[in-house]
């Protein structure tokens, strides 16, 4: 139960990092990654990282 970021699609804008309510997103090697153990998929709400991400299809089910 977690989301992941497709590195090829990531623009490295970092919007998801500061919108993540669980601080599960961080920069690594020029793009951002989601720590699976921290991701709750926003507990049933629309995941905030997906809502703010400018690239469709960048953040998907792990």
């Amino acid at each position, binding site marked *: 139960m977690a989301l992941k970021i497709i590195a090829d699609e990531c*623009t*490295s*804008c*970092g*919007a998801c990092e*500061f*919108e993540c*309510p669980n601080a599960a997103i961080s920069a690594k090697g020029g793009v951002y990654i989601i720590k699976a153990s921290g991701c709750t998929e926003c507990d049933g709400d*629309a995941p*905030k990282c997906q*809502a*703010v991400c*400018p*690239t469709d299809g960048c953040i998907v089910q792990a």
Partner: protein
Amino acid sequence: MSSNVISLSSIARGRVAPAAEPTAPTGGCSSKSCGSDQGQGDMPAHIWDKVKDHPCYSEEAHHYFARMHVAVAPACNIQCNYCNRKYDCANESRPGVTSEKLTPEQAARKVAAVAAKVPQLSVLGIAGPGDSMFDWKKTSATFREVSKLLPDLKYCVSTNGLALPDHLDELAGHNIDHVTITINMVDPEIGALIYPWIYFKGKRYTGIEGARILHERQMEGLEGLTSRGILTKINSVMIPGINDQHLIEVNREIKARGAFLHNVMPLISDAAHGTAFGMSGQRGPKPAELKDLQDKLAGGANLMRHCRQCRADAVGMLGEDLSQDFTLDKLPEVAAAYDPEPRRLYREVVERERADRARAVEGAEAELADTVAEAPAKLVAVCTKGGGRINQHFGHAKEFQIFEVDAKGVRFSGHRKADNYCVGGYGDDDKLDIVLAALEGIDTVFVAKIGRCPKDDLKAAGIEAVDAYPFEYIETAVAGWYAQRFGQVSETADIA
């Protein structure tokens, strides 16, 4: 680098007459020229102080002073149909495009390096590549770092306005006295055609609902800036068939809320950019359509016509981009020690040149009024490297400055790019086609020098190249030519 530095002997330019609008802060292209007026005129002293050296707020200043953008704010909270966040090209010059994102500390080093080499630098702006207000932590950290190194810079930010109401007091605290908001609509139904979604307070909103929230936040932000005495420029992207006529209403609404300047920019749309508008074939306006709209807006909020739609990491005078000379790998590890003296001297020289040019232009226009009674207004193109003079070879021109001339004087009308927003990659024949397209509706171009072949090519296309006024002030040359062509006393009319 040297191409950016205007030689001191060549500076002086640009007629900027008293503004016609006594009720609002004066300025804008609604008068003789863009942005603020040449002289203080009836502008309150505190406003004149803010705009006189800002190249984006004063048409005259943009020939003397340079700006730089640092790309420290990549995150954005809305999606616009004219923006593709994945796109980057070093040869591309348009808003939102940048080649490298900087941390606030890197940005401060870059600013110090530029300030040491470009004495014209007067303004540091943060224009994304995302949204400076949404990515506020990085924006404010950058201003903090830079102000430690360079206390005499002016700061400005541009934003879509959605997060603006949250940071009004902090903006005032950072001594940021220029803010640009991009406002493309005041009607959410039109907004829904421009913005597919917005992200607000943890949720994505689409369609009219999203556009309405954006609109309300933009108006709240604009009013908040006005009440704090922060000068506001409104950028609007002109999108034919979607908001072109609507921008008249936008102009009225923003003026009512105290906007200082309105900058209507043409949509840049190309399928190769991968934007929604580019992919759907939405076209940008033609130069004549843009001018028509700008002329219709001339009675409203002050208009800006000299915008070059620069990159999120642009460096240098408007219309010129040195960002490739100041990439991260070329910066020193430690910020250069800052010496304010060259910049102080530069400002002194500019003050003198401004006064000299103003006198020359005044004389020229007085002559014009004497010699030309009734003649049609004419649009002419000028090749210039800046400094207000006809000082560029036709073959080097990547853009033309357009002036309108009649018996009342010579007025700046706008720029037309002749490089199709991309540098290089065109053969000579292609280039001529691009130039001819840029000069649509214009039959006279002033050049410092031109080869015989291109002169003949232009002639075949019905355009006369005038090379009789090399290195003269634009206004005196154009006025002299016009008086000679249309005046009754052609002998004495040659005042240039």
